[in-house]
């Protein structure tokens, strides 16, 4: 079946943003992790940045970071069947004090084309793929994450597919004891070799119809 690979758009976006929303350096973990709004929401950064964070640093300050990756998948045909999808991120440096993992989730930022601090609580908790342990990730290459059946249903055939990432211990609201973060590349980086991507395996609506008609004619 055909595979179409989608990429977020760079700044200034008109369809699909990517970036991170952070809530930085608070004294009480529950307040930082459970906040409605963050402290920063950069979406036009080039090069390596730390998006995913569930971290305690010196002085007992806590930072939680969440990644947003939206893909314009409207070129798929409404009626196509999505049979598989792989979400890929170019990670760089991993710090893993508490044996944390990456969880792929859905996101619902206020805008498809920009991130704001109020989007901090717009990263979901439902796992769209099996978690990937930070210890299993190799830096400076793509980590490919196969979406589960829930994730496949969140690939839009008509508009924007809104995914993102949190650390598993952020989702579980587990207070960190040290630095747990992972740096990555977003689409604003120069070139096309490190961008987030979503590879969707899909049967074409017309192809499905032809197969159905053929089956009917052959009685199988």
């Amino acid at each position, binding site marked *: 079946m055909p595979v*179409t690979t989608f990429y977020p758009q760079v700044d200034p976006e008109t369809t699909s943003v990517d970036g991170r929303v952070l809530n930085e350096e608070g004294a009480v973990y529950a307040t930082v992790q459970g906040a409605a709004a963050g402290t920063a929401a950069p979406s036009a950064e080039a090069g390596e940045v730390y998006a995913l964070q569930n971290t305690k640093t010196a002085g007992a300050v806590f930072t939680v970071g969440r990644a947003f990756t939206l893909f314009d998948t409207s070129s798929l045909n409404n009626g196509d069947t999505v049979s598989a999808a792989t979400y890929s991120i170019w990670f760089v440096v991993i710090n893993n004090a508490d044996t944390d993992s990456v969880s792929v989730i859905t996101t619902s930022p206020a805008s498809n084309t920009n991130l704001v601090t109020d989007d901090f609580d717009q990263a979901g908790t439902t796992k769209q793929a099996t978690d990937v342990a930070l210890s299993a990730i190799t830096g400076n290459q793509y980590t490919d994450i196969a979406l589960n059946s829930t994730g496949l249903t969140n690939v839009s055939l008509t508009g924007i597919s809104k995914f993102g990432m949190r650390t598993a211990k952020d989702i579980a609201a587990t207070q960190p004891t040290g630095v747990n973060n992972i740096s990555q590349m977003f689409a604003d980086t120069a070139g096309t070799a490190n961008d987030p991507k979503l590879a969707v395996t899909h049967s074409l609506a017309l192809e499905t119809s032809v197969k159905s008609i053929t089956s009917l004619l052959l009685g199988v």
Partner: protein
Amino acid sequence: MKTDYKFWYVSRADDGHITECAIRFYEGDITTEIENGVSITRYRRTKRLGEDNLPHFKGRKSRKEASGTDTVIFTSKDFGNIKTDDELRLFLNSQLKKDASRTPIDEQK
């Protein structure tokens, strides 16, 4: 002025050959700005380029994004039988070179 491109999507057939890609072209320059409290010099895009700014793409097939913006389409009729992103990049770099008024960024020369 500098120029670069980014993928919207790349489609492959069952056998892995690339059948179609949709590409966004941009104009920008190397500038210095404060990002997260740090002065950073890098390429920054300032304008999306379309048929009006890229005469050599006039009349090319395009596809509308979800926002309604036209995006340039290339097919195997343009780039031949290729499978890898690197092969596609070589082809697209050659398209960037056709823009006489702008210089491709170093990553796409």
